[in-house]
């Protein structure tokens, strides 16, 4: 049974975020709980933002990955309303990957921003609305690159 749970958990972990190819939904901290009862798997997840348009695709990808595991017939996916997603759910190595690959950064715990391109601290917020619900816009005055911030 535990072996099956491990395989299901691994299958969930293999699903990538549609907007960050190369980053799994588990690494982004979206997966809260995985359980298996008989041939039925259930996956509980937390959205970064409630109105995120990717939720259906993510759920579909999870169902496809999990029902491909031998021994699983059905997979229920549930989006939880609590706990809410916070940025400390993102694995530290993923933060680095987001910075180097996507020029997307996270605010430091003291509220400051560090430029993911040049490492400078002179990053200022430019707009609370980015191209995605979960991101705001900033700009580095040193290397003059626009930066996006997960929020």
């Amino acid at each position, binding site marked *: 049974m535990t072996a099956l749970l491990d395989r299901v958990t691994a299958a969930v972990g293999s699903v990538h975020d549609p907007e960050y190819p190369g980053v799994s939904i588990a690494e982004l901290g979206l997966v809260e709980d995985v359980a298996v009862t008989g041939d039925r798997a259930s996956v509980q997840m937390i959205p970064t933002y409630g109105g995120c348009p990717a939720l259906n695709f993510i759920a579909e990808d999870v169902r496809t990955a999990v029902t491909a595991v031998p021994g699983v017939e059905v997979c229920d996916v549930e989006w939880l309303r609590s706990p809410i997603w916070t940025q400390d759910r993102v694995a530290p190595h993923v933060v680095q990957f987001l910075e180097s690959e996507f020029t997307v950064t996270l605010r430091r715990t003291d509220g400051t921003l560090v430029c993911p391109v040049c490492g400078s601290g002179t990053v200022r917020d430019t707009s609370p609305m980015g191209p995605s619900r979960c991101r705001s816009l900033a700009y580095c005055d040193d*290397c*003059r690159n626009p930066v996006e911030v997960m929020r």
Partner: protein
Amino acid sequence: MTRTWSDLDDFQAFIDGGGMVEPNDDMPAPYRDEVFRFIEFHANSELMGGLTERDWIPRAPGVRLKQIFLAKTQDEIGHAHLLYQVAADMGLKTRTEMLEQLFDGRSRFHNVFHYQAVTWADQIAIAYLVDAAAFASQRAVFAECTYGPYKRVLKRIVSEEGFHMRHGEEMLLRLAEGTDTQRSMFQDALTRWWWPAVQLFGPDSDPNDPLLRWKIKSQTNETLRHAYIQKYVPLLQSYGFEIPDDNLRFDAEAEDGKGAWLTTDIDWEPLKATMRQGGPDSRRRISTAAANYADTAWVRSALEPKPVAA
């Protein structure tokens, strides 16, 4: 650190060696001009595209589709925002100048945003066909793209557009598997949008195009257009739709026996008309965008820092 180059040959050697240009570099003026113009065109297109999608939020059938169109609109406007920032930073025009020239009808943007979306099926044809063409062309720019800030923004744009294409495919399949009325709605939309989508890639590239030489574009227009036709003709036919081209044929001998879809000779006059703001829906599109800009002047004004009375 400001890098300089002694002349264009020196700069070309840097580009050919895989160099990436950054905003603080003392880049050659012709490079700055061409790259700026290209990014401004891209920014204008994202903005005009976003406004098109916004029109369909209230008309999208169902809450889920409204949510998708809301999110796509936010994506496109956000992309425009990032691109205008990168463009303005090159120092040739301010963001306000770019916007005012766009709304005055003095700037260019993608041909596809000069046509009218008649029914909901047109919007799906746009999401499926036009987004795919834009995606292919953006991906080809991202592949090399020697201007650093643009390449970094493109990375995110390309990831998000890939996700939009999934929406387009899902919406198309719903119509394709629907009633006869739904299928004929899509066929009509395909007839209207096929050629504008194919023409989005532009006429054959000038072999001396500086954007190719400076590796902003990684492939010629005709290469991208050809690949698009090879992919989408069989896909649309497999869903039972008809490509509006009487001379379309598959030549099994073409490309060393690999075979290729060959189309009729493309009439580029409609594309040229859109570049002069003379497309079928250009005037309405531009005036709607201009009215939107005027209506939101109070927001920009409210965001301006103002001196506080002591």
